[in-house]
């Protein structure tokens, strides 16, 4: 008997469920080949930047889109991962096999410790306390005088992998980032469809019911919070290597806000949306700041319009268009 399976929310948008991510990743994988034809090294580094933030955005979508946990301190995990690279480098340790686990572990530990408190709250209180913890990380980084404080810290060179300086090659770096994004995406897709994922998705809509069925919602939410933090730590590791620089600004609450915008812009609760939204946001930033340095004066009201009229983000818009054409 073929049983119906209930798909995670966004796939009911019916955009040929797997066509979108396949197309996205195909595009991303071919960019280094296309690059010499259009934009050169700049396109390559921009795309890498998009993918790096997309990893953090996908992790954030787990929290916001699938669990209803509006974390306003997500940038802190990116910053912690980045600072792990920076601080280790300042002490002469420039090996990815050391820095990467440390970056992820630090971010995960911070997520665990702060999560213990955060998960006891809900709603507005949750937003505020994640914001507060993000600020704590920000201020701590700003006061680290030996590591640049407010001004930040330059990193001498990108990490080596098992002693090999492969990451200095832009193409190799690009594909490493690509691999991380793909791995993160596949992992999160599996997570969402798993037993664990089903519990947290249920808890988003009806936590009381989930508890009375027998699940300790606190433990489940804490776990996914740690996972999301760890993934963002990975993003920070890659960011530090990409820019060869770390600064407290990586952890500002404005950055956390921008991450939430990226996820919403693409479409919540779909993981694909997180990647699309990140690309859209960074593209808009590039394009609009070409006109004026005050581009946010335009972007701000545009955000308001998105919230009022295009709540489902770009994926939602596309789905509505497809539906509209079918009925026409």
């Amino acid at each position, binding site marked *: 008997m073929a049983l119906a399976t209930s798909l995670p929310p966004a796939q009911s948008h019916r955009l040929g469920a797997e066509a979108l991510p396949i197309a996205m990743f195909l595009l991303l994988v071919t960019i280094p080949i296309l690059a010499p034809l259009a934009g050169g090294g700049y396109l390559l580094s921009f795309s890498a930047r998009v993918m790096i933030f997309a990893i953090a955005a996908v992790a954030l979508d787990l929290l916001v889109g699938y669990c209803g946990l509006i974390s306003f301190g997500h940038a802190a995990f990116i910053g912690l991962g980045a600072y792990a690279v920076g601080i280790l480098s300042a002490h002469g340790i420039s090996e990815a096999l050391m820095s990467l686990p440390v970056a992820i572990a630090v971010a995960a530990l911070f997520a665990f410790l702060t999560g213990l408190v955060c998960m006891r709250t809900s709603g*507005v209180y949750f937003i505020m306390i994640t*914001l*507060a913890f993000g*600020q*704590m990380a920000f201020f701590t980084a700003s006061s680290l005088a030996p590591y640049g404080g407010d001004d930040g810290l330059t990193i001498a060179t990108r990490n080596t992998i098992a002693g090999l300086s492969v990451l200095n090659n832009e193409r190799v770096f690009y594909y490493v980032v690509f691999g991380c994004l793909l791995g993160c995406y596949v992992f999160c897709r599996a997570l969402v469809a798993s037993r664990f994922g089903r519990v947290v998705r249920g808890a988003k809509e009806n936590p009381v019911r989930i508890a009375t069925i027998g699940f300790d919602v606190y433990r489940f939410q804490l776990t996914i919070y740690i996972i999301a933090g760890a993934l963002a730590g990975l993003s920070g590791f890659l960011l530090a290597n990409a820019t060869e620089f770390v600064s407290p600004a990586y952890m500002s609450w404005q950055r956390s806000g921008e991450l*939430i915008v990226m996820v919403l812009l693409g479409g919540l609760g779909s993981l694909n949306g997180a990647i699309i939204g990140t690309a859209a946001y960074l593209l808009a930033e590039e394009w609009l700041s070409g006109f004026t340095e005050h581009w946010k004066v335009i972007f*701000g009201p545009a955000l308001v319009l998105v919230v009022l009229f295009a709540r489902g983000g770009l994926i939602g818009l596309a789905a509505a268009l497809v539906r509209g054409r079918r009925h026409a």
Partner: protein
Amino acid sequence: MSAGLVIVQILNGLQLGVLLFLIAAGLTLVFGVMDFINLAHGAQYMLGAYLAVAFFALTDSFLMALVLALAAALAFGLALEFLVFRHLYGRDHLDHVIATFGILLFINHGVKLIWGAAPLSLPMPDLLSGSVRLMDGLLYPVWRLVVIASGLATAAFLYLLVVHTRTGMLVRAGASNARMVSALGVDIRRLFMIVFGFGAMLAGFAGIMVAPILSVDPGMGDTVLILAFVVIVIGGIGSIRGAFVAALLIGLVDTLGRSFSVDILRLIMGPSSARTVGPALASMSIYLLMAVVLYVRPTGLFPAKAR
């Protein structure tokens, strides 16, 4: 660490406290009554300061600048409510966060566009620009005392309004259970508008009063916003009393922490470690306080909503 210095810092802490209260009061009411998260509230405070600077340039009188800036701040707040916010009541908190974040970006960068990024200043009224002698060798600026006094007076006024007027009662009821109030036939839209406008005015007032002491720059709203959120979360959303207690607490903890953290830490660690750890710990202190409070009381000290 002399007694005089301690007194000065306590007064500074009170000043920051009443400032935070003026901002937090509007924020907590808007949350409490309309369940609306307003990230742009700090920008309202900043606008008050910038408008005061602008009107002072026009009129050369602090008093005129104060009155006009208050009116303009109120008008702007009401316009925001009418154009954007009232379409978002009842929606998911995430929608509020993103929309008000957009407004925040708009105001922050709009201010930069109009007035530039360099800090501006507003001179205080001549009459009140001196210092007063609190005790031997201890001078304290009159204007700061004026700020403290006006903050406390506003708190008292708010208390009277909220406890002894019909509108105030409706606001308190709304903070507890907005749907019930609406079901009782009260024009809830007008109530919301009044709450919002009043809150915006209070924030603007804070901006105007503090402008002579601080520098008026495009980042001033953001710092104060976070503090205000910490205040209302610790105080309990929807509770003015909670906002008052928490605001004073945070003003004092933050100010005294920053001034004396190194000295206090020197009691338990060496001077150079105290000097590195001190400032970091001081800036974190209020967030640690918030974490502790929320761990013990996940809905703040005096939550308005019945559990």
